[in-house]
C-alpha cells in the first residue's frame, strides 16, 4: 500500500515542482527590470528548464511541459503564435537524439549544450520571424553570443539546483 502511494505521489510531485519552476522562470523573464537596471539583458531562462526536462524527464509530461512553457512565453510576448512551443519541442527532440551519442552527465557538458541550443533556437527564431533583416548582422551575432554565453553561465547553478532537487526525488538521467 505504501509502495503504491509513493509511486503515484512522486511523479505528481515532480510534475508540479517542474510546472511551478517553469512558471516562476517565465515570471522572472516578464518583470520590467529596466525600472531599476536600465541596461539589463533579457535571457530566456525557461529554455534552460526545457533542456533540463529533455535530459531528465523524456516522458509525455516532459514533452507537455516543454510545450506549455513555450505557450506561456508566447502569451506574454509579441512573438507570432505557435513558434515558441514548436522551438521548445524541436530542442527537446534534438536533445533526445543527441543523448544516443553523448551522455551529458557533467555540468559542463550540460552548459555547453545550453549554449549551442540557445544560440540555434534564437537564431532560428530570428530567421523565421525575419528579425534578421531588422538588425545589422554584427549586432545580431554579438547579441546572440552574449545571450547564449550568459545563459550558459546561469545554467550551471540552475542545473545544480534542478539536479539536487531531482536526485532528492529519485529522478535520474534518462
Amino acid at each position, binding site marked *: 500500500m505504501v509502495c503504491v502511494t509513493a509511486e503515484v505521489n512522486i511523479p505528481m510531485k515532480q510534475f508540479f515542482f517542474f510546472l511551478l519552476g517553469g512558471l516562476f522562470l*517565465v*515570471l522572472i*523573464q*516578464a*518583470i*520590467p*527590470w*529596466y*525600472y*531599476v537596471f*536600465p541596461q539589463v*539583458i*533579457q*535571457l*530566456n531562462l525557461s529554455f534552460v528548464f526545457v533542456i533540463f526536462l529533455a535530459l531528465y524527464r*523524456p*516522458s*509525455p509530461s516532459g*514533452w*507537455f511541459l516543454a*510545450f506549455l512553457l*513555450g*505557450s*506561456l*512565453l*508566447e*502569451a*506574454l*510576448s*509579441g*512573438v*507570432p*503564435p*505557435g*513558434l*515558441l*512551443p*514548436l522551438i521548445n*519541442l524541436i530542442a*527537446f*527532440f534534438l536533445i533526445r537524439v543527441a543523448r544516443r551519442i553523448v551522455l551529458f552527465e557533467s555540468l559542463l557538458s550540460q552548459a555547453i549544450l545550453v549554449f549551442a541550443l540557445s544560440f540555434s533556437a*534564437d537564431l532560428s*527564431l*530570428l530567421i523565421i*520571424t*525575419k*528579425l534578421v533583416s*531588422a*538588425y545589422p548582422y554584427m*549586432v545580431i551575432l554579438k547579441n546572440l553570443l552574449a*545571450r547564449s554565453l550568459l545563459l550558459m553561465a546561469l545554467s550551471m547553478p540552475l542545473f545544480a539546483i534542478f539536479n539536487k532537487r531531482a536526485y532528492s526525488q529519485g529522478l535520474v538521467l534518462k
Partner: protein
Amino acid sequence: MSSFFRKHQNFIVASFLVVFSLSVHSSSVRSNDNTPSFRRIILNAYSPPLRAITSILKEVRHLLSSYILLLGVQEKNIQLQKSIDRLIEQNMRMKEVLLENNRLRNLLLLKSRSSSKLVSAEIIGRDPMGWFKAALINKGAGDGIKRNQPVITHQGIVGRILDVAADTSKVLLLTDINSSVDALVQRTRARGIVEGRASDLCELKYVSSSEDVRLGDLVVTSGLCGIFPKGLTVGKVTRVMKDSFDLFQYVELTPGTSLNKLEEVCILFPENN
C-alpha cells in the same frame, strides 16, 4: 492497443504537440475580435504578481535615488548639520515626485487636449523574449479596452493593443517588427508605412524617391490604417538615404516616445465610443 500506446506514448504525444503548434502557427493571422481564452488566462494569472513586483521595483528605485546614492555625499559632508542632510533627502524625494507629477500632468494635458476618451495605464511587464517589442499594462477588458486600440503618450504613439485579458492587456510596440502604421511626413505630406526595426527605431517605407524628406521632419499618422486617428506624432526623421536608381528612399525614424523606458501610457478610445 493499450500496450502499443504505452510503447509509443512519447512519440504520439510529441507528434500531437508538434502538429498542434504547426497548426496554430499556420493559422496565426490574428482575428480582430477576441484574445484566445488560453492567452487571456495566462495574462490574468501573471497580472497580480507582475503588478506587485513592479510596485516593489518602483519603491526600490525611489530608495536608490533618495538614499543609497546620497550615502557618498553624506559621508563627505559628515561635518555638516543633520538638518542639511534632511533637506537634501527631502529635495531628492521632491525631485522624484516632481518628475512623476510632470509625467502625469503631461498625460492629463493630453487627456484635456484630446476630444477622444483616454484611459491611463501603467506598464507592469515587458516582452519576456527580448527580441520582440511588447509590454503588459494594468488595464484590460474591465476598463473597456479592446484589441487594436491605439496606445499613446503625450510625446506620440506607443503601439496598439494586441491581446486583452480582464485587467491586463498586451501592447505591441511601434518598434516591433510586426508593427506597421500608415503615416505621412508633416511638412511635405509624403505618405509611407512606418514599420518597426526592432532596434528602438522605425523605418518609413514606400516613400517615393522623388519626395522631399529631410532630417528632423516630423512624421505623423495619416489616419488611414483604421487604428490610429490622423495627426498623432510617430517620430522624427533621423536618417535619409536616396539612390537615383531606386523607386523608394530609405527613411529612418526615431519614435517620439522613448519606448524602452516607458512607465505610463494612455489608451485612446474611438470618438463615437
